[in-house]
């Protein structure tokens, strides 16, 4: 399991230092694939909840969401050189501090010799680095990637629990994720056209 967590960790951290949105999307893909592999290793037991979770991870998080974001980025002509966080020493130091804080927090929670230490540390990293990206990013595409990183971080936390919730709830979570990606796409596309001043709707002067 540790090598999968290491892969997730690399897929989370490396795109922060590589100036490319392709790298960021590949990172999202690898995170989802690593989580799917972890779920598989946990054992599916042919129960509906983990099967739905596996489909969610492989189909929507590893394939659909990155593909859709890539499509949007290409449509909008986003430059290939794209920083997920500002490329300066201050923000990089902040990212490093957050990574260390995540593992420190994890140690406080479960103790130094727990098997959960790495899992929780990486999951915590996922959430905190997503918040860092959101706080420093101004481009909608980068903010969208931050939201997806946050969603992945929460999913990694969920994988830490052995309890399987009711399949209806798992299905609902998958549906919400899909809807989130679609809504995000709709908005990022519309934000791409928000340049001109003044009303863009014939009935703009009236108020509903």
């Amino acid at each position, binding site marked *: 399991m540790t090598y999968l967590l290491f892969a997730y960790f690399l897929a989370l951290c490396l795109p922060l230092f590589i100036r490319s949105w392709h790298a960021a999307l590949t990172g999202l893909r690898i995170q989802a694939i690593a989580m799917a592999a972890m779920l598989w290793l946990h054992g599916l037991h042919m129960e509906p909840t983990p099967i739905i979770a596996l489909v969610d991870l492989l189909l929507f998080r590893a394939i659909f969401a990155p593909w859709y974001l890539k499509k949007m980025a290409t449509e909008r002509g986003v430059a290939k050189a794209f920083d997920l966080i500002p490329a300066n020493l201050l923000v990089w130091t902040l990212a490093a501090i957050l990574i260390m804080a995540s593992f420190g927090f994890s140690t406080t929670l479960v103790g130094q010799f727990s098997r959960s230490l790495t899992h929780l540390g990486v999951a915590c990293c996922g959430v905190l680095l997503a918040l860092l990206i959101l706080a420093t990013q101004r481009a909608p595409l980068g903010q969208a990637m931050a939201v997806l990183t946050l969603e992945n971080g929460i999913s990694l936390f969920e994988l830490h629990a052995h309890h399987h919730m*009711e399949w209806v709830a798992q299905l609902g979570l998958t549906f919400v994720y899909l809807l989130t990606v679609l809504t995000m796409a709709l908005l990022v596309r519309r934000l791409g056209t928000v340049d001109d001043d003044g009303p863009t709707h014939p009935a703009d002067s009236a108020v509903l």
Partner: protein
Amino acid sequence: MNLLPLTTVVLPLFGALLLLIPQLYVRSRHLLLAIACLDMAVLLPLTLPRAAPSFELEHFVVLDATAQLFLLLINALFVGISLHLHNRVRAAPELAGDIHRLVRLSLVFMAASNAAILCNHVVVAWICLELTALTAVPMIHHQRRDSATTASWHYFLFSAVSLGLVLLGVVCLTHGIELTVGAERVSLFHDNLRLEVAIADPVWRRLGLALMIFGYASKLGMAPLYSWLPETYDSSSPSVTTLLAAVQFNVAFVGLFRMLQVYGGNDADLASYQLTALGLASMVLATVKIVSTNNYKLLIAYAAINHAGVIALGLALGRPAAYGVILYVVSNALVKAILFLTAGTIKAHYRTKKIDELHGMIREMRYSALFFLVGTFALLGFAPFGSFFGEVIIMTGLITTGHYITFAALCVLLSVVFVATGRSLFPMVWGEPPVGAVRQPESLVALGPKLFYLAILLSLGVYTPAPLSTLLQQVANSLGTR
């Protein structure tokens, strides 16, 4: 099996599906009003106080006092919003173009809101709340103004973060329970969680509570993640603003309230500190903004943040202020609905949101100005409105539990808000009107929703019917053990 409560979810969804038929587009505003009224009619008998909660649909649906009260509130608000939308389209036919899209989204929004309140499962309730946020996004930029599109994006981002933190809190709580009772015996139904929380691992339990409170507080527009609220309320149309400020606010509040019910007296110290800190920070911030703004819609939005702060302070006290909090929440929803709908009418007529450009509204738009005035009085916590009594009970709770510094801070902040709001809004109503101003005709039908809200607001302060009073008391009693 009594599936009648589910009608409040199924009916709006059915209406939304009907609006996929292009031939019905022209009838969309009538359909909206019909479904809102029908929903209310179905709901009324269900809201009579009952001795014990009833569970349906394999325990996923609960009809307890909390669900009864808030279903009644948000559906009553929805009737008013539907009537407002109906009247606006009738008065300005150019708005009818793609109204069916807004109506469809509003109906899905209401179905998800009702489902969130009725849901007994913590994750499914979260999913429903998330669905209300996702349906609100296209509603915010329905009129396709650039500012609204940006606002809806910010709303989306903040919603994703705040609700993400809530889900993370639920995951932490689940893990805490799992550590003590085993993964197989964990149940995420609210009523079972109450028993499990008491024996959960305290570290994970407290982490879960802290994350959930922070997440829900952000969804309610509290500091530090508050900036989406004024921007969204200012950029959306009045009907959408009212849906967010009055309906969604209460759905998120129910989420927070249910978690506090689940925790009972466990970790009351943490909840108290966190809610007090978030509440006071929100109030300070809102007060500064209220003093400095020159936009009446923004002023009401900041007042909403201020009120969320008062609610958090009340919740921090637990049982001693619970009745006051519930009364304040219900009154607050009605006040916001009156003010945002009236602000919409004012904006539609004057085409400005600037306070210093409006004077003597009482001469031109007598009834709207009166509603604005009365709404402002209720906003400021004047008697005999429910908000006054709610505020008094919260303040009394602060004194009786020995929170003197918080009490003093609350008094100072409310006094500053009182002066700043009065100084800004009263000249809009009473000042000298512009030269050539003539009185505008205002139909009684258009005033209907606000009159309806005002009547409920007054009744909460002057005379609360026995069933409603019992319901309020039952909801208050369900909070905490202190």
